[in-house]
């Protein structure tokens, strides 16, 4: 029994399949399960492109979403062009739905900027990569990482706009957007398009304030101090101290206009260099005209007003729009100035359809004597503006074409005329013999002074005379005399005896005179008759006998 058992044991030693094989089997199963578990829970690998790998370490740097650890960087390599790094990060499986096409990755490092200090917690723990999930439904595994945290997270409600700027002004990412002094948004991205030479700024306006933006909103750069010397005088304008230091953008509705239509996400606006230029260019449409001046345009600047009888109807676009040679083919040299007349300023509505109407109006106006001139707007600064008005007795003209531009006829500017007039007046004044006049007038003054002195003396003596007692008694005596005179006159009257006597005497005299008359005649004819007496009267003879 035992013998056979021993033999069986002995025999089976090589053929029996030992239960010890369960151990490697179990190890294999556990290992396999672990590997499977690892693979099945292993999430996707995302490829992130960064400009630099500062703070990113393969195998160490974490990927977080909302501060929750969702993965780890697996490798950091230079990209093929060697101008950036490719970071591969393994995310957990649960993070896969976060990899929307508009998700954003950026490296969180300690940062100190105008908008504050951030990422201090990474000083000790090291940088990590932040994932901000987007809204898109599509999933992608390739992202280009941002260099710094986006100014606004992708899910923030609000309005994203593009501002275009072609006249300088610097804006930086993170600069505030303010509406009447309140911070309502930030500049998200800046970009300069070398081809069109315009700066493009992406701005974001946070949710409750995005309703403030409408088609009548205008944006201007509110950085720094604006000192402006123009036809309208001197203006000094500054914004808040913060924007003075860091710059920023302000916007507001156009004055005297209601809010316009709503704007959509991604609409673009012009970024004006300052607030004043908004008032100068509040309109989008305008008709361009070329104006050729025969005189100096000194003092005329771009943006100077174009006025019609004191009402602004447009602006000067440029004072050197064309090459001088293209304009001047003849003898006379004229300075080209490009102006713009805006229908919005003339009550026609700021729209494209009004442009033709403006053109027709101007063409008609030119036929009936409308001309452009240069006028002085500010004598202090010497700045000028273009004035349109109707003039009589001008040479007839029409809207002309010069170098492809419609050209408005001009007449010499008022400034030149004024100057000439002033010079003429001054010349006349110069020619006056003022010194002689002065000497004369001095003598006159001297004489009149003497006269006055004498007059004063006379007055004094007159006064003393008047105060004399005798003079005071004079009226009474005068009255008495008058009474006497009256009685005397009564005697002399026709009824009076004197008169009668007198008239009788006169009659006597007249009788006597009559009697004397032949005597006198005789004496006249024959003076010697007084001695010889009267000759005897001759007989009258008929004339025929003579």
């Amino acid at each position, binding site marked *: 029994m035992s013998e056979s058992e021993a033999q069986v044991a*002995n025999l089976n030693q090589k053929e029996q399949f030992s239960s010890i094989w369960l*151990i*490697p089997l179990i190890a294999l199963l556990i290992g396999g399960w672990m590997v499977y578990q690892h693979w099945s829970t292993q999430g996707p690998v995302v490829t992130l492109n960064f400009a630099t790998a500062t703070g990113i370490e393969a195998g160490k740097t974490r990927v977080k979403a909302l501060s929750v650890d969702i993965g780890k960087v697996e490798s950091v390599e230079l990209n093929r062009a060697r101008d950036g790094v490719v970071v591969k990060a393994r995310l957990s499986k649960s993070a896969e739905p976060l990899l929307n096409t508009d998700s954003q990755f950026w490296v969180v490092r300690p940062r100190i900027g105008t908008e504050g200090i951030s990422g201090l917690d990474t000083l000790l723990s090291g940088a990590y990569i932040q994932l901000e999930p987007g809204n898109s439904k599509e999933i992608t595994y390739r992202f280009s990482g941002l260099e710094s945290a986006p100014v606004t997270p992708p899910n923030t409600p609000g309005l994203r706009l593009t501002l275009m700027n072609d006249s300088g002004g610097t804006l930086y990412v993170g600069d505030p957007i303010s509406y009447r002094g309140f911070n309502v948004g930030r500049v998200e991205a800046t970009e300069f398009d070398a081809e069109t030479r315009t700066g493009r700024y992406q701005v974001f306006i946070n949710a409750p304030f995005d309703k403030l933006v409408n088609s009548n909103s205008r944006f201007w750069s509110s950085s720094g101090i604006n000192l402006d010397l123009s036809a309208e005088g001197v203006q000094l304008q500054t914004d808040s101290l913060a924007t003075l230091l860091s710059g920023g953008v302000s916007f507001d509705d156009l004055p005297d206009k209601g809010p316009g239509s709503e704007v959509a996400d991604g609409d673009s606006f012009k970024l004006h260099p300052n607030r004043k230029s908004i008032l100068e260019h509040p309109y989008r449409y305008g008709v361009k005209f070329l104006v050729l001046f025969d005189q100096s345009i000194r003092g005329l600047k771009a943006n100077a007003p174009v006025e019609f009888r004191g009402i602004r109807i447009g602006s000067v676009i440029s004072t050197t729009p064309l090459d001088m040679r293209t304009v001047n083919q003849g003898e006379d040299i004229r300075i080209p100035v490009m102006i713009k007349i805006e229908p919005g300023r003339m009550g026609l509505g700021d729209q494209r359809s009004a442009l033709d109407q403006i053109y027709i109006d101007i063409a008609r106006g030119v036929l009936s004597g409308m001309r452009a001139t240069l006028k002085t707007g500010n004598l202090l600064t010497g700045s000028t503006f273009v004035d349109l008005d109707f003039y009589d007795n001008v040479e007839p003209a029409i809207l002309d074409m010069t170098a492809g531009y419609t050209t408005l006829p001009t007449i010499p500017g008022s400034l030149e005329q004024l100057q000439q007039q002033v010079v003429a007046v001054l010349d006349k004044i110069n020619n006056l013999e003022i010194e002689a006049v002065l000497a004369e007038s001095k003598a006159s003054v001297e004489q009149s002074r003497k006269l006055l002195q004498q007059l004063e003396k006379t007055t004094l003596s007159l006064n003393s005379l008047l105060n004399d007692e005798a003079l005071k008694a004079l009226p009474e005596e005068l009255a008495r005399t008058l009474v006497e005179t009256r009685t005397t006159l009564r005697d002399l009257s026709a009824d009076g005896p004197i008169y009668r006597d007198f008239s009788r005497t006169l009659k006597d005299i007249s009788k006597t005179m009559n009697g004397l008359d032949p005597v006198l005649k005789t004496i006249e004819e024959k003076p010697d008759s007084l001695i010889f007496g009267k000759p005897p009267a001759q007989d009258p003879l008929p004339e025929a006998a003579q």
Partner: protein
Amino acid sequence: MQTESSFPKDSAAAQGLLCCHSCGRLSPQDTLRCPRCQSRLHIRKPASLQRTFALLITSILLYIPANVLPIMNTEFLGQQQLSTILGGVLLLWEHGSYPIALVIFIASVLVPMAKIFALCWLCFTVSRGHNRPKHLTRLYLLTELVGRWSMVDVFVVAILVALIQLGALMSIYPGAAALAFAGVVILTMLAAMSFDPRLIWDVTENSTRDTDRT
């Protein structure tokens, strides 16, 4: 039966005797239990080659995670640093600590691998009946000698984990590889124990006898 031919003539088995594994008492082959210590008696260790093989394969399986997974997790000022065995060796070597790097390399890479390969070689040659007794004997002795040093790495981790616990400043935690490595060491020890060295000579003497015959 064939038992006669499978053991060398001068061995105890060939003479109808067997040796107790525990106390070494010789008993007749028909005895089931040792009359002295009552343990079960076998002519040779039962399924020795199979057991050794199985344990070796398990240890090889465990050796993969032991090297791939981090053995130590160092947290220094909030920064985690995971280190594998080979990574630690390389790090020490780069830092210029050549002796320590060598010690760790020998203890945790060279020795277990040498042991696994040696045992594999022994099992393989024995099962195929190769005839190199002296060589194999020396290999077996070497395995026995070297095996007891292979736990150094586990000890190092255990000591560091126990010593360095400074909270947020610096802490060291054992990684999954430490467990796997301990498993490797234990399994190779068990494999070495389950290997019956007499099989070497059984085969050798068999073959020498066979060659004598022919």
